[in-house]
């Protein structure tokens, strides 16, 4: 196993690379890739015969095509597998139409549901995905097919971006927000859960008024949880429940959301070595496996 991590800024999740070194891809039948070009981060998942071979999570740059390349190059770095060996590529996410080497683009709604189904099993019925610039709740069937969804992509409050603004304003690395939000003294102040711009000035005023950083973090995790729970309740939650996206790694928000809706999220099995942030790219790679099979079948029929 190969793990490289770096940490430069407060507000972004560290870049992450993982590869299954035990897997021999040579002689395999289907090699596919899913590329999720998100507004803040981009991920690539490479799948060999229905199993995850490698993945990489990186920052999205100013150009979607180069971010897509960067994500895949990172996943394949140090491996003898190259883009030429990949049979089918599906692009997803906000920049999905700009993945130059993709055979097809599929919406992130479909891909997240399919990825969650792969990660946590066919019993998953409700998925909360908290991404960089949007937050969505999907209801799906046992095949990971979406039945209904609801999303907020108009307002930064209740999205990863809202949390990043707070992380930056308070100078706390985004990885630490969840745990620190439970290390409080007394009852944290109640803050508004609406505008991120106002939340930032409110946070500064609270610090100035003598509240500790941890207390203010607790307030914002609670406000975000409240906002997200409202979105979940609008569509209804049916167990099993699973959370994907960067915020899935923030227990300060996750625990509070679970408390409000009264349903616990299925924890991600650590032995899979997967990361909730790659759900979209993973779903795209799973779709690519199915599409590749379909295409080959068609080719044999025609041939």
């Amino acid at each position: 196993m190969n793990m490289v991590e770096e940490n430069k800024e407060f507000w972004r999740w560290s870049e992450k690379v993982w590869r299954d070194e035990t897997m021999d891809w040579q002689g395999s039948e289907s090699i596919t890739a899913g590329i999720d070009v998100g507004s803040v981060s981009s991920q690539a998942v490479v799948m060999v015969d229905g199993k995850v071979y490698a993945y990489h999570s990186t920052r999205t740059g100013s150009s979607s095509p180069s971010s897509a390349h960067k994500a895949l190059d990172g996943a394949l770095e140090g491996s003898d597998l190259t883009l030429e060996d990949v049979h089918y590529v599906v692009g997803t996410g906000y920049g999905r139409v700009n993945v130059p080497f993709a055979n097809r683009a599929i919406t992130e709604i479909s891909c997240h549901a399919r990825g969650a189904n792969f990660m946590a099993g066919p019993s998953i019925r409700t998925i909360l995905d908290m991404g960089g610039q949007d937050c969505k709740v999907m209801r799906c069937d046992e095949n990971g097919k979406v039945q209904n969804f609801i999303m907020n992509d108009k307002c930064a409050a209740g999205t990863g971006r809202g949390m990043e603004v707070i992380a930056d304003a308070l100078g706390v690395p985004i990885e630490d927000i969840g745990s620190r939000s439970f290390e409080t003294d007394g009852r944290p102040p109640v803050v508004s859960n609406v505008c991120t711009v106002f939340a930032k000035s409110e946070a500064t005023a609270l610090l100035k008024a003598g509240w500790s950083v941890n207390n203010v973090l607790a307030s914002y995790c609670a406000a975000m949880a409240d906002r997200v729970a409202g979105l979940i309740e609008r569509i209804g939650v049916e167990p099993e429940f699973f959370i994907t996206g960067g915020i899935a790694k923030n227990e300060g928000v996750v625990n509070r959301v679970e408390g409000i809706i009264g349903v616990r999220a299925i924890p991600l099995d650590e032995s899979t070595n997967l990361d909730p942030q790659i759900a979209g790219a993973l779903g795209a790679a799973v779709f690519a496996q199915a599409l590749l099979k379909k295409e080959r079948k068609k080719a044999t029929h025609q041939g």
Partner: protein
Amino acid sequence: MITAGIDVGSKNIHVVILRDEELVGRWVVASGFEQAEAAWRALEGAAGDAGITVEDVDYTVGTGVGRKSVDFVDHRVTEIAADARGAYRLIPDARTVIDVGADEARAIRIDETGKVLDFAVNEKCAAGAGVFVEAMSRALEVSLQEFGEMSARSKESIPMNAQCTVFAESEVVSLIHNNVPKHDIAKACHDAMAGRVAAMARRAGLEEEKVVLGGGVALNMGFVKALQETLSIGEITVLPDPEFLGALGAAIIGAEKGAGTTAGLGKQPQGA
């Protein structure tokens, strides 16, 4: 009789002093974190501007979002009441009053006697308030003054996809990356904001004759032009010294309230 109107806004505190309903002094200070103390300094500044001392003021009226934190005033009124009264005094045939401040915007419909008929407020979202243009001018790295002026020069209409201030900042950055001229980006920002303010004005029941504009954002000619185009009405009258609208209205209400009473200045804030 000398009255003072103190408008405690989220960003600035404005004070207007009237002597027998004639404007004799005004002052502005940043709100900061200690609003009561800042309000007292603003009042002192305005008194100095009027050539009097704070003790000479007979009656004080507080308004604005932070009015409750100011304990030394004789009376408090809402921003709606203050804006309506101030605008009616300045332009008696005003029927729609729009006030766009730093964190908040309001539209108020008044009748021919200055009475408030209806109003709408935007206080939950930064888009549609002054902070929106400030954030966008920062993203473009130009001063607020330049931002307004360059926008008025633009002939292009580029739609902005983002409504949220936070997302709009990233959109501005990608427009810069795509080499869109700065003045066209500035116009896109003002158009987006004007759209929000216009929607709010319509919620209050926009009365086209006559629309007057107050609040600090009224000093931004790019915004005024965009609002005029969005509302597609003949002309919006920008009130004189628009940022003092609330304070003026409060001082006028003070003159009416305080007439015949002997109320003096309340206690000073602690530490002032």
